[in-house]
């Protein structure tokens, strides 16, 4: 059912759509994924959480989209909001950004003083309170800085602008990183050399049961 649009709203909408069309029609790519499919349900507290379990959470986001400031995705292995204008949280596209992805995969609490673990449904639209920079500096009770040479799978490497989690180590000393890389990249596993880069520091989620 299509809701009838009140006249004043229609005028504003027409003006907005015209200006957007003239400005290159950025909204032509707007899919309103989060509005149509995501929810704000409460997460489930979990008394046991492992690195393996978080890997599975992360893998379900693989091949989904990237949304700056976002944190909601399905698991159909496709970006439902390709080509969204970048760096706009109001495009309501599918997927997390790098810090929102880490927050959800690490199953953290919105309360930064709480180390507890919460299972967020993938369609729960939540970004969490941390930026990449705040992860880098170990902000929040669940997060701590950690020497890079000692990082293992499901630890993270963060810079002031980006964060990715270690998926596996490679024989040549590089790492496979699972990350939300950007609008054109989405979420996936790539080989990266963040560990040796002086722009990146080590971050560890505390409290793993295994």
């Amino acid at each position: 059912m299509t809701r009838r649009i009140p006249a004043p709203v229609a005028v504003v909408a027409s003006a907005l759509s015209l200006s957007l069309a003239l400005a290159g029609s950025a909204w032509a790519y707007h899919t309103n994924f989060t509005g149509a499919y995501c929810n704000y349900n409460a997460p489930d507290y979990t008394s046991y959480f492992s690195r393996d379990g978080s890997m599975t959470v992360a893998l379900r986001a693989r091949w989904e989209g990237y949304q700056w400031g976002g944190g909601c995705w399905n698991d159909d292995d496709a970006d439902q909001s390709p080509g969204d204008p970048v760096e706009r949280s109001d495009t309501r596209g599918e997927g997390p950004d790098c810090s929102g992805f880490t927050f959800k995969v690490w199953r953290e609490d919105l309360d930064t003083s709480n180390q507890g673990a919460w299972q967020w449904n993938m369609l729960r639209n939540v970004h969490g309170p941390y930026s990449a920079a705040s992860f880098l500096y170990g902000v929040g009770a669940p997060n701590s800085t950690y020497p890079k040479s000692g990082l293992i799978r499901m630890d993270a490497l963060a810079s002031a602008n980006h964060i990715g989690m270690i998926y596996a180590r490679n024989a040549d000393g590089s790492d496979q990183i699972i990350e939300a890389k950007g609008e054109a990249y989405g979420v996936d596993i790539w080989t990266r050399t963040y560990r040796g880069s002086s722009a990146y520091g080590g971050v560890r989620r505390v409290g793993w049961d295994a």
Partner: protein
Amino acid sequence: METPRSSTRARRRLPLAAGAAGAVVGMAAAAVLLLGPASGAVGDPAVPSALDPTRIVDATHVPPVLTLPGEPVTLRYDVYCPPPAGSTRDECDAAGTVYVRPGGESPFRALPLRLDRRAADGRWAARVPPDVARSDFSYYAVLRNRAVGTAVTLPSGGAAAPQRAYAAAGTIPVELGGHTFGRTRAATERAFSATWGDGPADAGLERGREAEPVGPGSFVVGADGAVTVLDQVHHRALVQAAGVATVRDVPLDINGTLADLAGGGSGPLWVLETAGPDAPMLKEFARDGAAQGEVPLGTRTAAQVRIGPSGPIVKEYPSEQWVPAVEDGAALGLRAQRRAAEPLRAVSATRQVAVVRVGDEVRVALVGDGGVERAWRVHSATPMAEVQLAEPYADGVLLVVRTYTDARAEFEVVQLGARGLTTEFALATEDWAETMPLSRFRLAGSVLYQLGSTPSGVHVDRFDLEVRS
């Protein structure tokens, strides 16, 4: 994951509206914004429901590559899949078997993987029997999600293209000691430079909030010294001939994300697309940029493309194998790729290079048809990260490895010869912008080239390894 996306899923895209259609969709979008998501307005995508999570099964493994005489060898794997329904734990209920054999011809022997709960990495493990581990051996693993019976074979070629570990007797020890930062060698010459921008000779920079800057992903150097830089942001290559100040551009039909580059010179350019719906994908271009063909790669992750004896080869994960994508001009299908995968990178028809970082040392070897010909163990008191380059050079190998602390990093260039360390020097990382992870260096003859960047632009510096008279 070993099982690639189906081609239909991989290629599914939402239709892109443009031009006049943009106004219509724009209005619909505006209505959605103003009325809220409950409006059910035009433009809602048809989203399929979530897929069955039990399909997820992935495994990772770090191959030993080079083993030492008497060294215990344990093959370790991590397996990821959803926990069984009703489980109070959240790990995969996994099991697996490793099949090992001495050398490359004898029958495989099955070794059950056992869960090592104390291990941080590689929690499913099997010790290789000493009588097998004392020589070269090959192996593959089958890992299962016991809850639903799905399985993954690693490497995916299984018995037809197993992983292989090489016994390195008589390794030459090389001690680098602790690294002293700040003593880096200056370049012999700047072979290429471009400022960031969108002009004809500028290099494209991808950046934004919550993203590190991404610059040109890779480069190659021709036999004549011409440098070709992959300016993927602008969908082109930038070419600068040796001794010429001007840069010419070659348009390429690529998707604009981080990609690797190989070939060039008198042959075609090969671009490895690593991101996007169709990735990983290898694309061939003529010297003028004309598209020649595409080769889909049936792997989870691909990181490097290089030119092997018969055509381009791609480093793939999680197998950690080099996979030929094209042989003698013909593209290989996914099954043929899996069956032709090799554990080491071929540098000629009869020689391969093996490299592995093990803790605080890097093991390097030249491997021929008869096994390891010469091997080195390079130890550093300062942590080493990735090996950027390992190429045959003179009577040994030229190695470039990143050395780092939590605050600093440099590249260490190490020339290894028959007697051990021949020369070493350090280079500044010059890594302001991200590139493909393992494509910052190229060796052409006796010249080492480095792809670097600063906040003002990108460059390729040359470092002559031999003094010219």
